[in-house]
């Protein structure tokens, strides 16, 4: 099936198997392997990307369903070589250990901040209930998101 999907600002025309999941489209068709697969059953959230600006688990939708839409992956978050404040915060505040959940965490949290730019800690925790981390105990992840939110309030960025 023919699809036209914009990923990280670039339009891709592909002829794909209609059964192909979005996450496989990103990883295998486009070679964007920053989006990880952790569970196959939509629990872990490692595959979270932005679909028209909203956080979506890319293992839960077919690539054909997003025909004509805009996708942002972890590879598209940095702008002109400058890391997104959320990426910086995860790095600086040790919001990761093995890092496998990190792209999903960063995409989920940036999407959430777009709807709630100044969340409480409780709200941040609630927004991440669909994203597993097995290494950090989540403490530094929550701290990183809080710090990024504060920074972004001072210096708004895109996405």
């Amino acid at each position: 099936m023919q699809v036209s999907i914009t990923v990280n600002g670039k339009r891709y025309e592909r002829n794909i198997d209609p059964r192909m999941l979005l996450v496989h489209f990103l990883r295998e068709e486009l070679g964007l392997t920053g989006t990880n697969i952790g569970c196959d059953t939509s629990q872990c959230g490692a595959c979270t990307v932005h679909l028209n600006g909203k956080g979506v688990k890319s293992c839960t939708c077919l690539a054909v369903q997003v025909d004509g839409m805009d996708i942002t992956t972890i590879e598209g978050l940095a702008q002109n070589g400058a890391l997104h404040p959320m990426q910086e915060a995860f790095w600086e505040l040790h919001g990761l250990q093995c890092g496998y959940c990190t792209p999903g965490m960063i995409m989920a949290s940036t999407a959430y901040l777009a709807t709630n730019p100044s969340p409480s800690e409780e709200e941040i925790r609630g927004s991440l209930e669909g994203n597993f981390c097995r290494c950090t105990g989540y403490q530094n992840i929550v701290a990183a998101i809080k710090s990024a939110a504060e920074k972004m309030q001072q210096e708004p960025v895109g996405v």
Partner: protein
Amino acid sequence: MTGFLNTSVTRPDAAGKVTGQRAYPGDLVRPGMLHLKVVFAERPHARIRAIDTAAAMAHPGVVAVLTAEDVPSNGFGLIVPDQPVLCGEVVRCVGDRVALVAAETPDAAEAAARLVVIDYEDLPVISDPHAALQTDAPLLHLGWGTNIISEFAIRKGDTARAFAEADVIVEDEFSTTWQEHAFLQPEAGIAYVDEHERVIIETAGQWLHEDRRQIATMLQLPEERIVVRYAAVGGAFGGREDLSLQHLLALAAWKLRRTVAMNWSREESMIGHPKRHPVTIRSRWAARRDGTITAVEAHAVADGGAYASTSQEVIKVIALFASGTYEVPNITSTIVAAYTNNLPTGAFRGFGAPQAQFAAEIMITKLAHALGIDPLDMRRRNIYREGGTEPTQVTLPPGVSALPVLERCIAEAHTRMGHEPPAAPYLRRGIGIAAGIKNLGYSFGYPEQATAAVELYGDASINRAVVRVGAAEVGQGTHTALRQIAAEVLQVPFERIEMICDDSSAAPNAGSASASRLTLIAGRAVHDAARAALQQWHEEERPACATVQYRPPATTPLDPVTTAGRPNYAYGYASQAVEVEVHLLTGQVQVLRAISVHDVGRVINPQQVTGQIEGGVVQALGYALLEQFQMRDGYVTTPHFSSYLLPTTMDVPEIIPIALEHAEPLGPFGARGFAELPLVPFAPAVAIAVYNAIGVWLTRLPMTPERVLEAIKKQHTA
């Protein structure tokens, strides 16, 4: 220039991890590679009458279907090679691998795997270790002659006499269940044969050189012909100590002379690596009226599953810690690990210490209650002190900090806990405090060493330092910590130090990322190698190069008659306090806050220390309350994250990590390991807190709402 320690150097690998650029094993797949698919047994116990691969071979795109006869030496295992690489005669658990399909696409490999026809004759399934130990039980490994994988006993003093003379005796029985590592990155990797006829495997793991050894044995090749490289490893926690698919990748690459790739699903991961041992422990403890513990008797049975893995070593740890962190003059501790048709069990953060001390910490509390003594005073009176004697009749290694760690935990709990009442009449709150001990490094005579090489380049000053140390970065941050240690010794900026750690042909063997040992032992090897290289540098060697193999003081097996011996060269100590809220109507236990106090010897990187403690606490919380890996008649009933529940952000309490610095004499700058310790006292601390909240003991893990409600009901009936 000083000050590379106790500083939160941000980890260099984080750049690639926050941008999606860092490659995990599953990211290494490229066009043109062959895709592998395992045909799992999917039944717990059966004789293989025939394997028909014709239909699979005929499937378009299929290149080969490998079976047992293709494996040069068909057995592997960390300690005993009792696990077939591909089963040819018998399957003993649902995770057994029977055939390996190689095809041009993943879809073709998957479709063809379903076309492999295996004619099975089902055999009786033993799903309970106690049943496996019955004299008339069918043997799971005929050549082994018994269903006992291993048994172990520690005897000290005269237990019978101590019980006869005791003022008070308490008894109870405990049971724990499987825990799944649930590292987020499922097993994956690629393999190929290079121009030097070497088999290169790029994957994830916890010990490059042990993976290499086992693969070389399987292929009957010299170790130099095998190269294991680790890509970014997406968590491990002990679950990557055993080979899972690394050897299958190597086998296919070697046989087919093509680059091969394999990427497991979560379900394959769940059945494809060992779990934490389920253990039942019958305990009897005795004390004098003044609160001195006089005797501990513990008899334990562990479910080893279908293959030995590290059961033999795990049960020694369980037996050793039957008396917890306490000095007891009379001990009888026995344990047996049995083969069953369940999934194999092996290493998981804590390596037996959590199971043993779940029982021990509840027992000391019950003993205190029976004596009318404050359970914390009971701990203070009996806890290990410098110069104390171990259950194996030797003096504890120096650096015993159990008491100051406990005291700090008690003080913190006093300040931070128990100050708010519950918000509703059906909620009850309680606080629980428990202590824990865990060996650092290998035990009981298992060969222990770490090797590191340091090269210094430059002229007047050191422009570049290269540190080679084969220590696996599994997320814990070891490469950052080891680099900080090198920077501190060399007084060379962090950025000028290059770490070479992920290639078995380029980095020397530093042992496994396990047993809380890398900072201590690999760190010491790096420290010593850097010092030796620096010495040469001062003697005008250019470049200056030094390789050091660090061997800590030797441990020994136990004397077969007296059971005396040197079990370990170092220990880590922790104490934890938890405050819980129990919902009387639902049985739900909510941990409100947790204090986790650890002696880390010397803080190398504060961020990483707190990160390890917090992550460990949350895994421990899962172990205590949520995580219930289930098998029925040998079949896994929780093969996904939809049925195996992991802690989410919403389950996580306020966590207060505290690191104390009582130097470990052997450690680099006094640093000691601690990363397993959060798993040790937590579950009993929760059980004690629940008891303090509602007055009932939960002695089975996990403490699910159903079990809590059942216990409350029983209390009402009584």
